[in-house]
């Protein structure tokens, strides 16, 4: 029986995540995207339920800082995340900061 992807070697589980990420290159970006939108949309919806309004730029910064730290930690292990994805995460974090600071007025916290 042929499989679409090369199966990771489960007898040496230390590298099972790296082998899976090598077989499926979109695994790590999809995981980071999932974490970003879980924090972003979850935070917005809960804040809106509690206070009636939501601070979109603030939740974008919180979510992007979350995936920023995750991508830095994943960068320690070779083969888990590529330089391009790390740079894109850094850029998204800075863009969220740009959105936040341009959104603020002088009399706002």
């Amino acid at each position, binding site marked *: 029986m042929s499989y679409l992807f090369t199966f990771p070697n489960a007898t040496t589980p230390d590298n099972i995540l790296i082998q899976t990420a090598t077989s499926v290159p979109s695994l790590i970006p999809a995981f980071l995207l999932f974490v970003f939108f879980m924090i972003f949309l979850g935070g917005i919806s809960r804040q809106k339920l509690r206070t009636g309004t939501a601070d979109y730029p603030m939740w974008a910064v919180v979510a992007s800082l979350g995936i*920023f730290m995750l991508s*830095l930690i*994943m*960068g*320690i*292990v*070779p*083969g888990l*995340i*590529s*330089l391009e994805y*790390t*740079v*894109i995460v*850094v*850029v*998204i*974090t*800075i*863009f969220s*900061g*740009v959105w936040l*600071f*341009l959104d*603020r*007025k*002088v009399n706002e916290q």
Partner: protein
Amino acid sequence: MQWIISLMVIGLFAIAILSFAIGFANDNSSSINIANDPQINTLKIQTIGNVTSFEGESESTYASIINSTIAAGSTTTTGSGQYAITAGSSVGAARNILLIGYQKIFGTGSGFGIFITTFLGIIGFITILYVVKLWRAGLPD
């Protein structure tokens, strides 16, 4: 004024994020280090340069304010030197951040250059309006 402050804080935020990422990678001997990306290195150096030039300009403006004198009987300000902190370096910092960021995600297309030029032109125009309103008619709305 809030535009200039926002733009400068954006520059400081970008420097903090880039410095933290590079420092984290160096401290942990990471296999992935964004310092290996030449555009990111250039962005960091340019942003530090813009923020530093703003610091120098604000110091010289402050010196001009405290050295200025008001003659007896004068009621109007005859020059706008007190508001001479240019938005040039702060707008330049935001321009580099947005442009290089966009290029890292979407590639080096010319379409975004038109957008960013117009957008930062609007910011510069608003800044000039604020300066004129502040100078002529007190605090802006």
